[in-house]
């Protein structure tokens, strides 16, 4: 197994609050890795350190053997933030076009790829619409489209399916599996248990610590439980 992302003893505090505590993680290439944890457990903080938007107080992070933060490596990473960060005055297409330029895509490729990702997230019809007038779910989908845009080898998605209806959510997960087959590594954060079941590997996060990691089946077997939820509660009980 080759690990594509490695975290070594990553710790970070905001003021006095220890948000990440000695996190060690190995994420394998071509897998869907789920970060599961309750609200405030540090999922967002963790993925921000991986993309290098946040430099942790201590610890080391490597993406494909490059130490983060690294601007160059960001060319290989697609990121979807938890809060939609979109230019509200611009249309969906203009938002995509801007990011495509920032990733240095050439004109021809840009146009083709923009239409492609718009279709993938079901926004093709609304591409000329100003984002201000988008619904919450539409904004979410546009954020996802931006993350996919430059065909990165690694996708880091912070709660990608929040506010997306079940039908489209299934479609999105089919896409994730499709991309996985192409060798793309996907990291998703979630607190939805049925989504956790769909991941190849899971990291259970609480209070900034990784309680356990492994495949959903492994985690359930180890704790002799039938659901991820129970497994989570088991680890939480043991560790607290």
């Amino acid at each position, binding site marked *: 197994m080759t690990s594509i992302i490695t975290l070594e003893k990553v710790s970070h505090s905001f003021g006095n609050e220890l948000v990440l505590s000695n996190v060690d993680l190995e994420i394998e290439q071509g897998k869907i890795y789920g970060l599961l944890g309750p609200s405030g457990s540090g999922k967002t903080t963790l993925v921000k350190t991986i*993309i*290098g*938007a*946040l*430099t942790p107080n201590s610890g080391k992070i490597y993406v494909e053997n490059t130490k983060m*933060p690294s*601007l*160059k490596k*960001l*060319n290989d*990473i697609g*990121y979807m*933030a938890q*809060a*939609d*960060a*979109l*230019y*509200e*005055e*611009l249309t969906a297409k*203009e938002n995509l076009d*801007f*990011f495509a*330029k*920032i*990733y*240095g895509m050439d004109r021809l490729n840009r146009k083709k790829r923009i239409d492609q990702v718009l279709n993938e997230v079901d926004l093709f019809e609304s591409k000329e619409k*100003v984002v201000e007038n988008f619904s919450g779910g539409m904004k979410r989908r546009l954020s996802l489209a931006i993350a996919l845009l430059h065909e990165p080898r690694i996708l880091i998605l912070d709660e990608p399916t929040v506010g997306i209806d079940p039908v489209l959510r299934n479609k999105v997960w089919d896409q994730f599996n499709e991309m996985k087959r192409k060798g793309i590594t996907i990291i998703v954060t979630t607190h939805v248990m049925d989504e956790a079941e769909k991941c190849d590997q899971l990291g259970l996060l609480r209070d900034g610590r990784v309680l356990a990691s492994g495949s959903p089946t492994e985690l359930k077997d180890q704790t002799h439980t039938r659901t991820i939820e129970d497994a989570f509660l088991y680890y939480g009980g043991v560790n607290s």
Partner: protein
Amino acid sequence: MKIIAIIMRIIQQFIRDKRSLALLFFAPLLILILTWVVLDQESGNIAITTVDLPEKMITKLEAGEMQLIEVDNPDESLREGEIDAIIAFESNALQITIDDSEPSNQQAVMMQIQQALATNQNGVPVEIEKYYDTEIDTTFEYVGPVLIGYFAFFFVFLVGGISFLREKSQGTMERLFATPIRSWEIIIGYLIGFGIFAIIQSFIVVLFGVYVLGVPLQGQLVLVVLITLLLALTALTLGTLLSTFAKNEFQMMQFIPIVIVPQAFFSGLFSIDNAPAWVEWIGNVMPINYGANALIEVMIKGNSIGDILFEISMLFGFSLLFFMLNLVTLVSFRK
């Protein structure tokens, strides 16, 4: 090019943001018009009355620009504001009583009286020569150049600062940090994108001030635009810098009384020639001080670029300093 992508995006965004557009382009004009309405009054229409004045002097006064009025009770008329001054001749001396409850009166009355009586006094002809030959006779024309600079500064500071701030509060700045763009590319892109609007604003404000409101222009127009633009650039870099210390639009507004209003005191609108040294020292760190000075040099005194090199380099220096500080704060935020 990533910088061009940012510039294009800012232009697109700004063109759709009609409010900010109006604030940048029309608000300065509106305020200029308002000050013009208030301040563009010639200091004529001064009414005086004379008491026991020799006939010779009265004729001279009548030849001047003042209105001579006969009243029964000069003191009472002065109190009621019917007349602005009384000129009396007592024991071989001129006694002038002025209604000094109105600030502009005193100077105007003295000037008019001096002008009227100066000529041919003691048989020696007196000629008053205006050094800069400005033909300025309203307050507005004196302060116009300063106002042009001040309002250009103010609105660019506000609009530029707030839109940079919005990048932060919308999360789009952090989103950009997750892309392979360099911090300096973000700032340069921002400055150029906004700079384009600042250029347009400078042109609009200067042309409107000079050709519509009649602010005097003795020197070259391009110099005026250059100075205004440099002022706007300083305002832009300062606005974006301070916006990193504000959490929301309201906090950005709080910088106005701290940063913008005090600059008015050092803009040349008020004389600080006789202020203590430390006040003058404060003026030295106010960008508007240099901008206003340069504008007066060019517009009123008709000087050329050689005379404002110092002011121009100071403004440029301020912009550069603020730009570097912007870069430092953005890089530190990225961590």
